[in-house]
Structure formats: structure tokens, C-alpha cells
């Protein structure tokens, strides 16, 4: 084989004239392709069903089954199969019909050999590009799909279900949850599962920008609209055409921008700064916040009308401390992720370290967990991640729920968590724990039974 190795490319030549089959075969073999022949559409279709070809070069006029019928059947059987049809001058109309049926191109006989080579090369290149495109789209869907959100807890299962349901609709969605809970991932998953998935996903963190900058970021501007506007620029809303616009930290925008945004949602029109030309908007809006918007409305910091416009469908993302069942899964996920990046072999997490990770309150949620694992992988000296690799705050952790955080914990909840903490501290030694708690062993057992406290391994 020469420099261009085509021997792995299989071409089926279909023509009722033997001399045409031979002439083309000789030529294609000189080009380095692997070639097989069939004398009519029927025989060719049998071959197509038995073997994977890359390209079929078929004459249109043939007995038994003509080239067009073969094209229809062949494409139905293998949509990736490329077809080039051959015709004489008299049947160019039929060749055009073949293109409409899905043939890549047609060759009018007789033709310069170089042209045949070019058409074949183009069709094969197109096929490769089509395949790459399919793989990339699949990869994109996978990367931003639900699979990227880690969680098996009931709460997360409910969120996954909600993502699938809302993705199909065009409704405006508001995602609410503490900082670091993965609100943007959920917005991306909605986009990836929606009809708009091949459109852009444009995200803007509204809270990080001063009001004037946010305005130009959202709406874009015309050249000369303000000092420094040296050229026309599209805003994020316009950039999200046919796709999804994700507005994070929506609770932090000024009342003026709230009015502008409300108008966009109501009229589906925008005006670039410095322009009177309206631009029609076709973008789905998803917003997110960690703020208590209801309280903001009461205090006059957030417009009630915008709140109702944005809050058509709400997805509440639970904080990590309220879905502790997912922590081991997340730890494993981030270990693998860091392992691939750092080439460091951390294969396991000690049970003690895992307990600490599960019990910690995670005020920074999943983002904090990701950082803790990344740090631990870097500093760990053994293949097993131990308590020594964790930051002090995590090492000293004991279970804290959202209720506790909010100060509404009951006396029995407090007692349960205290017993658990002392049990953890004493490695579940009942005698030591009862001594520390200044109660006898029987009372401790009764309390453990009452609060359904069981060792993780039980």
C-alpha cells in the first residue's frame, strides 16, 4: 500500500455491463480501494445485507432492481452507507431524483478518471465528518446530560424526573438552591434534553457584574452607543437565539434591570443599547438563585411580577447535607476525575475518612466536596485516602442537618446526634461511649434502639 492507505475502504460497484464493472474495479483498485462488484440491484442488496460497505457506486438503469430502488433499500438498511449513482446524459433527471433520495452525488458517463476519484474522496470525507458529528453530538448530550449530575438519592431522582419533564416544554424554569449545589449543571441538563439542544447554551452570572455592565452584557450594543463601544456587539440574550439563556444569581440584579428583563420576557423583543431596531428573541430562559426571593419581594428588593414570570416551574436543589446518601457516590466520582487528571492512584477511601466526609455539613455543597477531594488527592501519600488527608473542618465533623443549621432542631434530634457523635469519637465502643455520656450501657442500648442508631456496617 502506498502513502494513502485506502485498502480498509470497501466499495461495491453495481452495473449490469461487465466491462463497466471491470473498468471501474481496475481504476478503484489502482486508487487503493477494496472493490467488489454486483451485476444488478438485487444482487447488490444481498451483498449490502451481508457485508458493511463504505460506498456503493451504482448505475441507475439496471434489470431486476434499478439504482434508485437499490438506493432506497440500501439507505433503509444502513443509513450511513454512501451512494454515488452513475448515469448517461439521457437520464440526468433520474440522477437528480437519486440525490433527493439521499445519494451523495452522481457521475455522468463517460467521465474523467480524476473526477471520479474526487467525488469518491469527497463522499468518504463527508461520511467521516457525519460520523464525527454524530459522535460529538452524542458526547455533548452525555457531557451535559443528566448523567453528569451525580446522585441516587430519592430527592435527586425526583429532580432527574423533573428535568426530563420540563425539558420537553418551553416553560421558563427557576432553579433554587444553596451555592455550590449544581444549579448550572441542572440548567445544562434541561438544555441538553430539550428540543433546543443543538442551539447554544449561554450562561451569565448576573450577580458578579455592575448594573451598567450587566445591561450591555445582556442586550449588546451598537458601535458608538457609549464611550468605549468601538464595534457592535451581540448581547447574551441574542447569542442564545434558538438555544437556552441561563441567568444565574437572578436575585442579585437591580430593579432597573429587572424591569428590562420583564419586558424581554413579555414582548420577546430586545433592543441593543444605542439601537431602536427591535430584535425578535427565540431563547428559553432558565434562571437560578440562592436568595430568598419571597423575602426580597416583601422588602422591595425584587419585583413580584418578574418573580411570577420567572417562577413558572421551580426546581429546588437540596443541599448536600440533606442527601448524604449521595456523598460516597460523589466522592468516588471526584476521585476518578482527579485520578485521570493527576495520574495519582487513589483507589480507596478509609471507612473512617468516608464517615467524616458523610457527616460533614458541607456548607459549600458539591463544589466544596469537589475541592476537598482534589486537595486530598494531591496531599495523600498512600493509595488509600485517610482522615489525615482531609481538612480540619471535615475531620472534626459530626452530622448536621438543615434543620440544625436553621436552629429549629428538636431536643430528641439533638440527643440522637450527640450520641452519634460520641459513638463516632469512641469508634463505636459502647462501654467508653456510655462512660462519656454518664449513662449505663443498657440505657445507651435503649436510646440507640429508640433513635434507630446503627453502625454503618450493620
Amino acid at each position, binding site marked *: 500500500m*502506498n502513502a494513502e492507505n485506502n485498502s480498509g475502504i470497501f466499495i461495491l460497484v453495481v452495473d449490469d455491463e461487465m466491462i463497466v464493472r471491470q473498468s471501474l474495479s481496475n481504476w478503484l483498485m489502482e486508487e487503493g480501494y477494496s472493490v467488489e462488484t454486483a451485476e444488478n440491484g438485487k444482487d447488490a442488496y444481498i451483498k449490502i445485507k451481508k457485508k458493511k460497505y463504505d460506498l456503493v457506486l451504482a448505475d441507475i438503469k439496471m434489470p431486476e432492481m434499478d439504482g434508485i430502488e437499490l438506493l432506497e433499500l440500501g439507505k433503509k438498511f444502513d443509513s450511513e452507507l454512501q451512494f454515488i449513482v452513475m448515469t448517461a446524459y439521457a437520464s440526468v433527471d433520474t440522477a437528480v431524483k437519486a440525490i433527493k433520495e439521499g445519494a451523495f452525488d452522481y457521475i455522468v458517463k463517460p467521465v474523467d478518471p*480524476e473526477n471520479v476519484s474526487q467525488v469518491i474522496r469527497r463522499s468518504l470525507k463527508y461520511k467521516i465528518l457525519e460520523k464525527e458529528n454524530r459522535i460529538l453530538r452524542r458526547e455533548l448530550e452525555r457531557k451535559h446530560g443528566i448523567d453528569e449530575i451525580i446522585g441516587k438519592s430519592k430527592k435527586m431522582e425526583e429532580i432527574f424526573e423533573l428535568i426530563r419533564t420540563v425539558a420537553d416544554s418551553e416553560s421558563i424554569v427557576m432553579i433554587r438552591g444553596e451555592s455550590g449545589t449544581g444549579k448550572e449543571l441542572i440548567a445544562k441538563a434541561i438544555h441538553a434534553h430539550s428540543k433546543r439542544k443543538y442551539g447554544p447554551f449561554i450562561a451569565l452570572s448576573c450577580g458578579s457584574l455592575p448594573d451598567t455592565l450587566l445591561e450591555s452584557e445582556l442586550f449588546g450594543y451598537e458601535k458608538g452607543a457609549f464611550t468605549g463601544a468601538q464595534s457592535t456587539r451581540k448581547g447574551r440574550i441574542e447569542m442564545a437565539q434558538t438555544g437556552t439563556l441561563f441567568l444565574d444569581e437572578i436575585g442579585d440584579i437591580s430593579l432597573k434591570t429587572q424591569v428590562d428583563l420583564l419586558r424581554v420576557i413579555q414582548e420577546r423583543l430586545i433592543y441593543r443599547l444605542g439601537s431602536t431596531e427591535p430584535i425578535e428573541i427565540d431563547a428559553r430562559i432558565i434562571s437560578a438563585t440562592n436568595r430568598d426571593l419571597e423575602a426580597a419581594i416583601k422588602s422591595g428588593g425584587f419585583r413580584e411580577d418578574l418573580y411570577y414570570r420567572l417562577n413558572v416551574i421551580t426546581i429546588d436543589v437540596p443541599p448536600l447535607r440533606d442527601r448524604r446518601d449521595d456523598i460516597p457516590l460523589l466522592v468516588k466520582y471526584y476521585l476518578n476525575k482527579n485520578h485521570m487528571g493527576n495520574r495519582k492512584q487513589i483507589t480507596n477511601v478509609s471507612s473512617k475518612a468516608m464517615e467524616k466526609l458523610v457527616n460533614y455539613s458541607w456548607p459549600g455543597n458539591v463544589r466544596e466536596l469537589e475541592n476537598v477531594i482534589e486537595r486530598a488527592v494531591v496531599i495523600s501519600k498512600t493509595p488509600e485516602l485517610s482522615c489525615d488527608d482531609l481538612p480540619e473542618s471535615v475531620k472534626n465533623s459530626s452530622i448536621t442537618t438543615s434543620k440544625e443549621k436553621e436552629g429549629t432542631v428538636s431536643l430528641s434530634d439533638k440527643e440522637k446526634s450527640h450520641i452519634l457523635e460520641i459513638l463516632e469519637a469512641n469508634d463505636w465502643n459502647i462501654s467508653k461511649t456510655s462512660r462519656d455520656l454518664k449513662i449505663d450501657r443498657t440505657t445507651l442500648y435503649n436510646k440507640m434502639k429508640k433513635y434507630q442508631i446503627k453502625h454503618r456496617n450493620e
Partner: protein
Amino acid sequence: MNLEKLSIVPLEIIDEKLIHQLLLKLKDVFKITTDQITWDYITQIDKFDFKSGLKYRSTELINYFSENFPGEINGLLFITTSDLYSPVFARYYGEAQLNGKVGIISSFYLRENLDEKSHDSVIFLARLKKEAVHEVGHLFGLTHCPDPNCVMNLSGKPGDIDIKSSSFCSNCSEVLKNTTATV
């Protein structure tokens, strides 16, 4: 099985000096013995006409002699001044079986943009030699090469033949070396 000897068969009266030059070139490039035989010699048993009007039906001719190969002959390269005919292709300079024993070259288009001046004769001879080496290269299993300087590069117009060299690129040389080494 590889070629050890190649016989050139002129299909019309062709300048002896020109044939001699081709024999030397092919002998030098492929390290094989070469000679010239006549059409009458190889068609002494069967009398067939491979012409459609003024053109030679190259595929049919190659197929026929592949199946009716005179025993004492090792490889055949037909040479003609006429155009070649294929039901598929409009204009080509030669045809050969890949890894086969029979090929054909035509000088019909090779005089394009040239006249009888001495310099042009040199260009014509160079084109003919390159096409002969190209087609015999196919007999040795070489396919078309993307390197524009390599003799196995596919030439669209006669002017393209002038651009490429009369020798093989390093890749094709390597393939040829491996092919001939397996004799």
C-alpha cells in the same frame, strides 16, 4: 507472483528509438529484463479486434490477455498512439491490473500543448516514460500516491505529468522494495 521480465508490444508502428528508451527506463527502475515483441507474435493463435472506431478498448484488451497469456511471456505492456476507450472514463493515459501482468499506455493525449520542436520531443518522451513507469508500478502492486512529486501520483492533464518526477517517493519505493523482495 512478481514480474521478472516485461515485454513491450507496440500496437502501431512506433519509433524504435522511443521504444528502446522505454525498455531501458523500465529495466532500470524495476530491475527486470525487458524486450519488445510484436502484436502478430502474441495474436498468432487468436485474431481479435479490440478497437471501437479509432480507440482501443483497454479493459477488454487487458482482460483478454490476462486470461490468454502466452506461456513464455512474463508481463505485457501495450503501447499505442490511439486513444483508449472505456464505457466509464472519458480521457486517460493508461490502464493496468493491480498486481497483474498486463497494462497499456497511450500517447494520444501526451503531445497536448507540444509541437515537433526538439525541446518538446524531450518533454513528450519524459511524459511517456513516466506513464509507462506509472502503469508498470500498478503491475507491481503500487496504487495512486498523494505525493505530487511521485510518479504514482494521478495526473489529470498532460501538464500535470510534467510536474511529477519519473521516480517513486520514499513510501512507494519502500513498498516496491518489499514487493520485489518477496519474489
